[in-house]
């Protein structure tokens, strides 16, 4: 056990390095971005699901839509209130949420997620 000192120093340096990103970034966390609703979305008042549920589950919902549309050929979504929607990211979601940059991208950037929806799906309002 002659190297006790060296080992402890090594472990300490290792622990410091590994935890570096954590303590370096403490206190610098940015607040979650405020979502801006486009006028079209405000005018529509309700989304297809309650707001909280949309925030949490829109990705699963879109995944469900895609299976339904592509696999089953069922393209119409019936919301709780009986209202019918075309299951389409470009033609339904973005009809109301016309501000993709402020609505979708802002949060995705914050969360560091990079959905590849837009590689194929078109943002109809894009200039």
């Amino acid at each position: 056990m002659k190297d006790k000192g060296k080992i402890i120093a090594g472990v300490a340096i290792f622990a410091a390095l590994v935890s570096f990103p954590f303590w370096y970034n403490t206190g610098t966390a940015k607040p979650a971005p405020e979502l801006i609703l486009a006028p079209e979305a405000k005018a529509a008042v309700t989304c297809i699901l309650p707001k909280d549920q949309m925030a949490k589950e829109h990705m699963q919902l879109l995944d469900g839509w895609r299976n339904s549309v592509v696999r089953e050929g069922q393209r119409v979504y019936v919301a709780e209130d009986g209202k019918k929607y075309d299951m389409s990211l470009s033609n339904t979601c973005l009809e109301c949420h016309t501000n993709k940059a402020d609505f979708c991208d802002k949060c995705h950037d914050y969360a560091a997620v990079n959905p590849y929806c837009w590689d194929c799906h078109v943002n109809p309002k894009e200039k």
Partner: protein
Amino acid sequence: MKESRRSFLKIAGVSALGVTAASNAHAIGEYFIPSEQAIKDQKVSTADRWGMVIDTRKLTHELNEKIAKSCHLNHNVPTLENKNHEIKWIWEEHYEHAFTQQPNEFQAEETAHAPILTLCNHCDNPPCVQACPTKATFQREDGIVLMDFHRCIGCRFCMAACPYGSRSFNFRDPRDAMEDGKPTNPEFPTRTKGVVEKCNFCAERLAVGKDPYCVEASEGALVFGDLSDENSEIRKVLKENYTIRRKASLGTGPSVFYIV
């Protein structure tokens, strides 16, 4: 002791299997929309097996161009100069290339030079579907051989399997070839680099009761309908005319018929 060890292992094995299955089911994470919440449009056109008859006597080079353009513009199919990168859903083909199993060195002039239109045959027994390892290519209940671009990994097994060359691969981002990177029909998605694509028999149009774009543009040269319905127009046309199919002897069961 032996017995209980044995049964313990059995139970442990079965439970491990159960846990794995359950967690996998979760991992795949398919979020199924309850059936009462996902319905078809009231105007939907349905069939047991969609098919097409192409009356080649009515085709001209100009009409073929018009038909292909209507399909390609509406489906955001890019026009690429490099032949190796070309993407096509419906295109003109020489008779001897379209019907390689009818070789005839003394073919009637008119037939030999007839501008044939070719597209995916939406085969009844599609080899592309068998080849696809991800089920990105699949056959719908109405016979349409469709692609789920989300699932395509770009392996191109399907292209090797299709005996008709009906499939194209996106060697580059198709949007690069579009004006300002913008698709011609903003209501329809584009594809992305690394996926295969082909004709979809206008599944998105049938879903709202419309005929495919090519049929609409064809001035009567293309007849579309339900092959399984004896009283349909397409069956009437098939009854009254001699038709051939491309490489039918391979057993693929093409659903596109040609009056020559």
